[in-house]
């Protein structure tokens, strides 16, 4: 998917979400999205300034994905301590790493906050160890 296609996709998704109030259902049909097939559903949650949107096919459970979004945000919150939009902007690599611990190749790998946090703590330790080794060298 090219950058232009991705930007177009974001515009389409935002136009679908922006007109919905917070009191309406968090699931909507994404069949009109050009990038994905007709069987696509959009499942989203609105936190402060951000929409977390998952595009999924019919094989996925809506409530399962809604819970996954909560898990993702909770992990972000634990990692960054009161996560906000700027944390995501300035720590994009870490956000992608966290996401890779939760979802890989479109499949859900892990939904336990504790297990995900353990992996992230291990990764942080590894980073610190390699940073110290670089300083000594």
């Amino acid at each position, binding site marked *: *998917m090219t*950058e232009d296609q*991705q*930007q177009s*996709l*974001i*515009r389409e*998704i*935002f136009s679908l*979400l*922006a007109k919905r109030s917070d009191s309406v259902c968090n699931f909507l049909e994404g069949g009109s999205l050009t*990038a*994905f097939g007709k069987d*696509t559903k959009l499942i989203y949650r609105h*936190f*402060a*300034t*951000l*929409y*977390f*949107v*998952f*595009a*999924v*096919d019919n*094989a*996925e459970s809506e409530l*399962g*994905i809604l819970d*996954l979004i909560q898990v993702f*945000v*909770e992990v*972000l*919150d634990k990692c960054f301590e*009161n*996560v*906000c*939009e*700027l944390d*995501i*902007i300035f720590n*994009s690599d870490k*956000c*992608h790493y966290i*996401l890779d611990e939760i*979802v*890989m*190749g*479109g*499949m*859900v*790998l*892990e*939904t*336990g906050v504790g297990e995900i946090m353990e992996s992230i703590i291990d990764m942080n330790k590894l980073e610190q160890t390699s940073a110290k080794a670089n300083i000594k060298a």
Partner: protein
Amino acid sequence: MIKGIFIVNNTGKARLIKVYERREFCNSVLHQSFAEGYQSIVDTSPLTALLFFVTSTNSNQYLSLLS
């Protein structure tokens, strides 16, 4: 299957984009899915991922998501 994950702010600017594309199955591995309790084939082909920012002076960006 999850086809894509997007974080968009309330002015329509993308903060994180991750699109999962199934390209080939030769690198697939059998994976026990903890979430669903069933065995599934996980496609480990390269993921298309892109993140781009548009700078903004919106002070709401400091707002804690879970507060």
